[in-house]
């Protein structure tokens, strides 16, 4: 048995989990400083990077810290001095570094973090959903969500380029286990990134204070500038998309050209959903998917271009509704909203097929939980 199936591209093919693919991308990005604390299911990313630093394959400082809060504090300090920086975390680790996520975004420092998206306790659960990464959406970070190990690789490299151009930290999300621990064929492209750029640097000997207590409108202006620049980062993401695998920019439009029904989703489980969409297409149902590759900046324009029948499938909730359901409806469209797959609850092709069938048959409630 032999085929030319995967022989379309020019790079080196490797079988890698999304964790391993991200580590490969970070190796190619040549960071100066990596700081991280292990947590399932992210740990293999920083374990692999620690091996690379240990063997001399990667010339970077790997700072072992006692907590995720310290990991982000080290990243913050190193970035202030002009270092290219990387960290990775999941779930409770992200919760623990949450305070520092605000500081690094507010300080307008470029940084890249991978998040293997996992549920947050209680009840205790190590499996996948999007609860953790969605908590970043108010901080001012750029938030990307990959669907495959290839996209995790490409998006991580793009993250360095975009973050360092717009002076905003960038989180790359991958679904726990179904991506983080699932090995797939990845084309390793040896991308050459621009030199590290950033708005300001503070080096030893410089007499500069930052982030002093603000009075008057300073904080208001800083938050406004960050919000405006975060929106503008969309242009940079779109412009650089073809240098990093051509995945579609802010969104991937899957079979949407003539669609009467649109499903809005993000993350690794979109692959199973696309197979279900193909099954419905074979039955003559005009259905497609708008895959949100980015949660921040939110792809408002793409949402506004959707047909009127919209189903948003969420893997994180706020109150009774899904977070993406609320985000999508804030663009001025009517949506039906399903919350599913929390705590790694498996949603496979057949589950998606039945859900989408119910949607096109008009039998879905406005908000439903798939339990």
């Amino acid at each position, binding site marked *: 048995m032999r085929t030319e199936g995967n*022989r379309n591209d020019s790079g080196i093919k490797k079988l890698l989990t999304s964790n391993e693919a991200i580590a490969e991308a970070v190796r190619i990005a040549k960071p100066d400083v990596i700081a991280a604390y292990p947590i399932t299911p992210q740990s293999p990313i920083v374990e692999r990077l620690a091996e690379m630093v240990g063997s001399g394959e990667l010339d970077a400082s790997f700072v072992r810290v006692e907590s995720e809060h310290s990991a982000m504090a080290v990243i913050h300090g190193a970035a202030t001095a002009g270092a290219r920086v990387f960290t990775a975390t999941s779930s409770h680790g992200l919760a623990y570094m949450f305070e520092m996520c605000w500081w690094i975004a507010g300080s307008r420092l470029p940084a890249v973090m991978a998040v293997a998206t996992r549920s947050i306790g209680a009840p205790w659960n190590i499996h996948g959903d999007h609860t953790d990464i969605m908590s970043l959406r108010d901080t001012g970070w750029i938030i990307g969500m990959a669907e495959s190990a290839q996209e995790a690789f490409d998006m991580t490299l793009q993250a360095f380029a975009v973050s360092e151009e717009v002076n905003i930290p960038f989180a790359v999300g991958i679904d726990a286990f179904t991506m983080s621990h699932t*090995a797939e064929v990845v084309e390793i492209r040896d991308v050459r990134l621009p030199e590290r750029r950033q708005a300001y640097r503070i080096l030893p000997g410089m007499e500069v204070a930052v982030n002093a207590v603000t009075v008057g409108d300073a904080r208001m202006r800083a938050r406004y500038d960050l919000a405006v620049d975060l929106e503008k980062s969309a242009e940079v993401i779109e412009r650089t998309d073809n240098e990093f695998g051509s995945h579609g920019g802010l969104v991937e439009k899957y079979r949407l050209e003539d669609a009467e029904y649109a499903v809005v989703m993000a993350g690794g489980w979109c692959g199973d959903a696309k197979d279900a969409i193909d099954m419905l297409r074979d039955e003559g149902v005009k259905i497609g998917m708008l895959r949100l590759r980015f949660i921040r900046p939110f792809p408002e324009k793409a949402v506004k271009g959707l047909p009127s029948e919209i189903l948003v499938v969420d893997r994180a909730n706020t109150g009774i509704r899904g977070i993406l359901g609320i985000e999508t409806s804030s663009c001025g469209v009517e949506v039906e909203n399903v919350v599913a797959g929390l705590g790694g609850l498996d949603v496979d092709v057949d589950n998606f097929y039945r859900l989408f069938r119910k949607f096109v048959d008009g039998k879905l409630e406005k908000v439903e939980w798939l339990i």
Partner: protein
Amino acid sequence: MLIEVTIYCRGGQGGVTTARILATAAMLQGYYSQAMPQFGPERRGARVNAYIRISDRLIRRRSPVKKPDVLVIFDRKIEVDSEAEVLILNSPEPFSSSGKVYYVDATEIAEKNGLVNAGWAILSAPMSGAVARALDIELSALKEAMYAELGTRAEKSFNAAKEAYEVVKWT
């Protein structure tokens, strides 16, 4: 074409390594492939699954395999209820099944080649050989995959895989 494989084994027998070796070998033959462990805490001796997908098209689904085309059973004491077309068994004899049964004494081959850890036969090498034969994966691709996945430990393992590839029988 999409082939879905479920491996039934015990924690510590090398089921996940087997999945990775075979997915890499399939990739080297031009296929898209996927290797997936069972998600959750793995314990030595407990029953665990690993999954492989092989296709000539991009594989998008990432949920665990529910209806495998091929079953690989590392320990015949593990009860498996399935209608898979192909079963690949670590056993000196076949057992009755509606599907085609491949069988090889992988434990013996592993022990003979010194693939033992803490008293446990590590079955990833011989079972990879048997599955490669059943799935029509070439021995050269299997060898390259084993060196890619196992590095310097690959030589002994490949000898065991090659033996299993050559002696596996089927009904």
